[in-house]
């Protein structure tokens, strides 16, 4: 991969630790999908990626840094920075949507997909949605709508890491049979291991290369905090920031897994 998922994890850990602010858990669960997308698609000039779960933006900044589009990550969450706490497309030109209030990104992605159809452009619109944010009603308005205009240039990627800000999804508001729910809205749905780049690649190839006439959705079975044992599957790490000891332990684990 042009963009290495483990490097993304290291940058995320560094910037959140340095600023003692930001969301590690839901950024770590996205490292493989974001790595795959930036490695295989031109998300700056041709295709588009909309991060509906805006709190996961550290992984996007890390990827843009790895691609050499951002000179430094030091200004993350600092005043006068293009690297806002949540994505701001007007401050950072490589982003395609301003998000952070949950549940809105898929509708914006639909708008982009519709505009591409109007302009007869042959591009792909990817939208990463969090599982917790699927409790927002607007997400289901969007799921209901996209098939109406057969937006087959749209691919929704659900980061199904099973945890949200205050606990586990199943305890707060369960999504139950997510795959069949979305299938019932006429989307093409695939269910894969969201940390396996080969599975991710196969799923995206299936949805982009075969001429489906409906939008595609990939449920990425992921682990919140993936890559650091004491962060994995612990909802606390949604927005908790590591202390020095935790940072060193996490750093060690990430570097060992890279070895």
């Amino acid at each position, binding site marked *: 991969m042009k963009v290495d998922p483990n490097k993304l994890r290291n940058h995320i850990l560094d910037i959140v630790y340095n600023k003692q602010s930001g969301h590690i858990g839901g950024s770590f669960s996205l490292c493989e999908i974001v790595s795959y997308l930036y490695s295989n698609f031109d998300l700056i000039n041709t295709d588009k990626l909309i991060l509906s779960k805006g709190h996961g933006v550290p992984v996007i900044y890390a990827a843009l840094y790895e691609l050499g589009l951002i000179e430094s990550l030091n200004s993350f969450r600092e005043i006068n920075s293009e690297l806002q706490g949540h994505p701001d497309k007007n401050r950072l030109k490589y982003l395609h949507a*301003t998000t952070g209030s949950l549940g809105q990104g898929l509708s914006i992605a*639909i*708008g*982009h997909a519709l*505009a591409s159809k*109007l302009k007869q452009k042959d591009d792909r619109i990817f939208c990463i949605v969090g599982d917790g944010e699927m409790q927002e009603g*607007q997400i289901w*308005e969007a799921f*209901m709508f996209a098939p109406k205009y057969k937006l087959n240039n749209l691919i929704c990627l659900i980061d199904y890491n099973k945890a949200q800000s205050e606990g586990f999804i199943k305890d707060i508001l369960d999504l139950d049979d997510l795959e069949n729910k979305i299938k019932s809205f006429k989307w093409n749905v695939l269910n894969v291991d969201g940390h396996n780049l080969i599975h991710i690649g196969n799923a995206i190839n299936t949805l982009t290369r075969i001429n489906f006439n409906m939008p595609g959705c990939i449920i990425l079975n992921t682990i919140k905090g993936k890559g650091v044992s004491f962060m994995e599957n612990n909802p606390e790490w949604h927005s908790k920031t590591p202390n020095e000891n935790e940072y060193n332990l996490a750093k060690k684990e990430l570097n060992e897994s890279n070895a």
Partner: protein
Amino acid sequence: MKATRDGFGDQLIESAKNNKNIIVLSADLGKATKLYDFSKEYPDRFFEIGVAENNMIGIASGVANNGFKVFLGSFSAFLTGKYDTIRCSIAYSNEPCILVGSHGGLAIGRDGVTQMGLEDISLMRSLPNMTIFNPATYIEAREITKYLCETELSGPCYLRIGRQPVEEVFSNDYKFIFDEPTVIKNGSLGIVFSTGCILSTVVNAIKDKHIKLVNVPVLKPITNIIKNYYVQGYDFVFTVEDHSIIGGLGSAIAEIMAEAGSSAKLTRIGLNDVFPESGKSEDLYDKYGLSSNKIREKILNTLNESR
């Protein structure tokens, strides 16, 4: 008599003839907002979103980001009620969409409070990047719609339109100029600022009185010209709006006067921090102080009390 929504609908169809960039989104209220007529004329540029205003707002944001001029419409109450979606997906994103809110004010009458846009301007006025238009008559609605279609917008706009036919106040050669509120009549006893479809009611209320009347079609930004009007030496300033007195024209003028240290007395006429009710619209306008007689009474009493 024609409604401002007709002025909007007619002009949109007219302007879209030469402007292929215009896209319309509707949330199952196309007939009421007059967007339905557009759909008949330009079916490939019209998208029915269904009863899902939040989704419509997000879609508008994405489409507008690709260089299209997007008009999205619903009842003003339902549209502006989706405040956070407008805030994040449109205003903070600074997408030049035109949010069209119909059925502003009490006019919908018997359908009751849930269908009335009474706080819409207040909500939209609080959003950075948002420009607010509130045309008063059919001709002004046409002119403003033309402006919106032909101008390269730097950010989102809110356009409030009404369902009730209103007496025309402007002549056919009236030209809307963004920075210029229109002086409807001159007078020295006081100055009345009116916004939106209530204008012809206000005209009738004070037509025989030596009171200045100014129509304010742009509520945000409030122009310097308005700032100068009251400075010209009026002791009595009135605002009239078919909207809550909180956050709309009344508040905007109050802010200007307070910041300038004005000693003039301000009287805000509008919905006085209240949810009204169902009823015949004439009865509602009378009960809630916005009929011609009630407006006249309020203005004259205020002027007389001080003598």
